[in-house]
């Protein structure tokens, strides 16, 4: 499937019209291209989470995140390194690409000194007090092709960038309730196939939140957003993810992605 999408992308680029002409890409094809964008078979990075409430009070979590693809299973481990009250808290997820299979998730809490199997069904729940949901974390701010119907709604040009606005509507009411989203509009840069901005509405179609990706650079040949900011439009709370020490090249030890290794966490 991924190969098909890449071929489709190549064909679009090969037969791209001369400057000034309009390319007609459907919302679905744009979403597929974003989904198929190479984001590395594995990555090791530091993730600083800044959580700011509407009064300006900021809390900070210093974490390390490793991710690796094993065929149809994407394994991710996140460990909190500070503050000390949360230090050692780890979250391990096995994300199965087969949409019919629930992911496996475990949480290790140092205060309990043991890992806990947790439900993966509540995809719309917020992750570790941030404004990102478990689904946002799993999809790495892409939009699941299984959950939404896509439509192209607008085209914009900013400097040299050729941008498209697409709309994503949940395929069913139950999916909308599960995710907590009634509609999403996303701005895509067709030169990188990366979302630049995503605007979310809740199930009742009230404005919910807005995610902005910035500091986009090629690292180890992979287009990467180094800053992702999410503002909750209802509460005024914002979360900023700052990625540093991003390493797509160095091999990652398979022993990290085990429930037993969660106890030890990541340094």
């Amino acid at each position, binding site marked *: 499937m991924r190969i098909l999408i890449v071929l489709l992308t190549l064909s679009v680029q090969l037969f791209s019209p001369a400057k000034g002409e309009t390319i007609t890409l459907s919302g679905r094809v744009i979403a597929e291209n974003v989904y198929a964008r190479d984001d590395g078979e594995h990555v090791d990075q530091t993730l600083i989470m800044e959580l700011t409430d509407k009064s300006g009070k900021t*809390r*900070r979590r210093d974490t390390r995140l490793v991710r690796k693809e094993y065929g149809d299973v994407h394994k991710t481990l996140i460990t909190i390194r500070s503050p*000390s009250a949360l230090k050692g808290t780890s979250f391990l997820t096995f994300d199965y690409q087969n949409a019919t299979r629930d992911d496996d*998730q475990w949480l290790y809490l140092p*205060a309990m*000194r043991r890992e806990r199997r947790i439900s993966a069904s509540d995809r719309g729940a917020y992750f570790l007090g941030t404004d990102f949901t478990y689904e946002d974390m799993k999809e790495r701010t892409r939009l699941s092709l299984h959950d939404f119907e896509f439509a192209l709604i607008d085209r914009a040009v900013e400097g040299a960038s050729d941008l498209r606005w697409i709309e994503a509507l949940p395929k069913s009411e139950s999916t909308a309730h599960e995710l907590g989203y009634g509609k999403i509009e996303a701005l895509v840069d067709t030169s990188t196939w990366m979302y630049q901005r995503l605007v979310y509405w809740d199930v009742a179609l009230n404005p919910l939140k807005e995610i902005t990706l910035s500091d986009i650079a090629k690292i180890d040949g992979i287009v990467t957003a180094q800053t992702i900011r999410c503002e909750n439009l209802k509460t005024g*709370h914002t979360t900023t993810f700052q990625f540093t020490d991003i390493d797509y090249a160095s091999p990652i030890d398979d022993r990290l992605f085990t*429930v037993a290794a969660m106890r030890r966490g990541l*340094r």
Partner: protein
Amino acid sequence: MSQRHAAILAFLSALIVLVEPAQAQMEAAFDVDGKSRLHATVTDGDFYYDISVEPSATIQLLSDWSLTVIARAFADGGDRLEPGRPRQNSRSSFNRRLLVGDQLELDLREAYLAGYVGPAFLTIGKQQIVWGKADRIRVLDIVNPHSFREFFLPSFEQSRIPLWSVRAEAPVGPLQAETVFIPDRTYAEFPEAGGAFALTAAQFNPPEPLTGQPPTLAPAVNRRGGFDYGLRLSGLVAGWDVAALYFRHTEDAPQFNTFETEGQAIITPVFNRAHLVGASFSNAFGDITLRAELGYTFDRGLSSRNATNPSLIDQADSIAYVVGVDWYGIDDTLVTVQFFQDRILDAAPSNRRKVDNFVTAALNRSFENDTIRLGVRALTNLADDDVMVQAEGGYELADNLAIIVETAVFFGDRNGVFGQFKQESRISIGLRFGL
């Protein structure tokens, strides 16, 4: 050279070997966590406070090895938990707290080296080893003993007594094998008479002499019995977290033989050797996570009256299990219910029931992006109809500073597991801090 000195020397030698070639690349992380609380008892309105400060350091030695040291200073402001200076008889000589006056103690909580040797991950030193999947119920989580100076009120992480031990973990096919060897003969710590949470319920105490004679306490038997060791296999099988284990151990709490002759009653604490075979399972189904663990104990010790031999106690097999359900149906909320049964087979214990049934229920919820956390938990013994209810609220002022409000209330008969502490029901306010 004493056993204590030999153990310390071995640990330091290992440390020097690991540190010496790696000084140039050494990294260290230091943290300090603490908690101070002011308590007020509900019945008497007495006020008292406690302060706990826990500095910790993790030092990277070689690329795959680290040294972790965690200490704890604890001040019991009213000297209520262990009045005076506790004798620490239940601890081995190299696992004792340093007592500074009656109210302050310094404790080396953990000190261990950890790293890979080939495919095996070794942890060597004083540490906590946690088996099992139940919350605040111990069926398989019996490797480390606990301190009961505040009964069940502290988290298990705080009440567990770390032991000098060696743990090796290695993958075996799709499973993870874990072996533990524990030379540290430290047992559960019970507050002495006069402590706020001294155990008065019958099942924790020796059978009373039938003749009404005032008993004499004899030296404990088998306190220096064999070492503890065990093996655990765990893994993810068809979506289930499964584990199976065997543990050979000296039971953490002594059982008692009440020996009576004409005009004399002698009570002898006996540390019993037992075998535990157990298994645990957990899996998620939609909004629900199911957890279960089962333990079968061979030759469990039971307090008894023995007219012929004062050093013996009864033994019987027993089975214990816990089934728990976690429900995640509401955002930011976790509801947990557990049922626990402990059943003694083929024997009639002299100071306790053959079957004990407990139910626990807990609700945890966070608000305002985890700035505010609330938790309520209840434990009840179905036979005695007594209950312990704990509630805690926390408000995070900054990354390392939170205000906490807690309450613990005991209901039921004064001879029940929880009812015995009715007079210790309390409300507390405090700060949790870190550096």
